[in-house]
């Protein structure tokens, strides 16, 4: 696959949230506003790309028997970097999302890309794969956050759009599940209708 295709694959073909159904926990937990979703997406994009590159660089040195702990170490390293940077520079957001930033270590999508892609491919393709997956995740979180914040709070990025709260349930956890489910169905429908796909089968759960 060309680099462009790798990038596109992460955003559309195998979008982590809408197609693979991986990392649904943050997709529900931090998306009650666009801003939170965006910053979470940026953090995941960074960790995903860097973890992919590092794993790919070290793939010849990692013994297969200890590969999963090794990937976890690599991911945890980059999560720590992100965590400390965010704690230093975006204090107010970090106060809200700090817990979830640390949880990036356990995100299924990052480990699965290390295992399925970066450990078998060279550095540059791994970089683009991580970039594509991270961007796909970022886009998914922003789209979910857009609908939840608009419907639940009547605002976007904290700026009021509608004077009332049209549908309060959307910023509650239950609304997150509604939003993810309906958007997933919508993207499946687009895929089946316009691209002749079969719809996502879902990789089955995960954080």
């Amino acid at each position, binding site marked *: 696959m060309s680099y462009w295709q790798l990038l596109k694959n992460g955003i559309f073909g195998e979008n982590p949230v809408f197609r693979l159904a991986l990392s649904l926990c943050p997709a529900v937990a931090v998306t009650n506003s666009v801003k939170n979703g965006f910053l979470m997406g940026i953090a995941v994009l960074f960790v995903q790309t860097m973890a992919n590159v590092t794993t790919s660089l070290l793939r010849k040195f990692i013994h297969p028997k200890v590969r999963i702990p090794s990937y976890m170490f690599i991911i945890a390293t980059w999560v720590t970097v992100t965590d400390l940077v965010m704690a230093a520079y975006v204090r107010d957001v970090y106060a809200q999302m700090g817990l979830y930033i640390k949880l990036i270590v356990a995100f299924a999508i990052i480990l699965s890309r290390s295992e399925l892609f970066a450990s078998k491919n060279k550095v540059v393709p791994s970089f683009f794969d991580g970039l594509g997956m991270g961007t796909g995740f970022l886009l998914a979180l922003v789209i979910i956050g857009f609908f939840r914040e608009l419907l639940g709070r009547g605002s976007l990025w904290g700026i009021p759009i509608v004077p009332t709260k049209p*549908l*309060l*349930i959307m910023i*509650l956890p*239950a*609304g997150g599940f*509604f939003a993810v489910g309906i958007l997933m*169905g919508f993207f499946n429908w687009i895929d089946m209708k316009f691209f002749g796909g079969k719809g996502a089968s879902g990789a089955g759960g995960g954080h």
Partner: protein
Amino acid sequence: MKENTVIVSVSPHIRSEETVSHIMWTVSLSLLPAFVMAIYFFGPRALFVTALCIISSILSEYFVQKAMKKKITISDGSAFLTGLLLGLNLPASLWSLNPFTLHVPIIGSFVAIVITKQLFGGLGYNIFNPALIGRVFLMASWPRAMTIWNEPTAAFLAFDAKTTATPLGILKEEGTGRLIEVFGDRVNLYTQLLIGHRSGSIGETSIIALLIGASFLLYKRYITWHIPASFLGTVAVLAWIFGGKGTGLFTGDPLLHLLSGGLILGAFFMATDYVTCPSVKTGQILFGIGCGALTMLIRLKGGYPEGVMFAILLMNCFTPLIDRSMRSKVFGAVKVKTK
């Protein structure tokens, strides 16, 4: 010699008139007494809110089946019944001179029919009771509009009816003493609760009318005693043991808990929904006990004054599990040995 005298056909050979739609319409009919009493107590607004729910349920069903290119089944009565049950679970105050709460019943019906029923595969495939999900969705989205309770009024067309707390609300906030004070004395309290002269959701107040409908369903054997009896029994026992506030164990008032809230409506008409309750009899008893325990947990310890709808929905989740673990043994089946 006559030919073709023997007709060979596949089972079922005994046909009954009890089709799905027959049952749905009968259940709807059995809710009629409660509905009439509700219109008597809450005036035409009760009629309007319920009618709005029924119409928007049927329209939702029609359009979603049209959009999904399924067979249109609005005449089987299931959408009608869902709309009716949702309407009976809403406060009558939604229909007031303020037009900004009229979207509430419509969105509730949409959620009940489209999201809870049709997106899960239609009638028979839904995990949760559609009307209850509709109501919980509305409770979470418009907590204020959903908890303005009208006082039952003698003035039939009064649009500016007084609002008041429900008996369970008073019980939670101010205790039994205040509740008896509001209703005069204890006997009057029970009588009023039995007849339904109290604030609350449209269809839940009149216990007598609901029991008439329920006994009709029991007589026709459309529902069995297992779920209602175990549900109500658990509530009564737990209310007796833990219901007393500050007076120790075994001093609670079971009758008060049985007669207030949406318990009777829930136990006889919602928990017994064929699709979302277990089909094994022992499982149904377990289901009822679970519903009762969760109801009392929410009523006594939770943040909401009433917990019947959450209890039923939570037990709906367990229905497949109960059914699977309580499946009766197939006669003659041999257990396959695994090494």
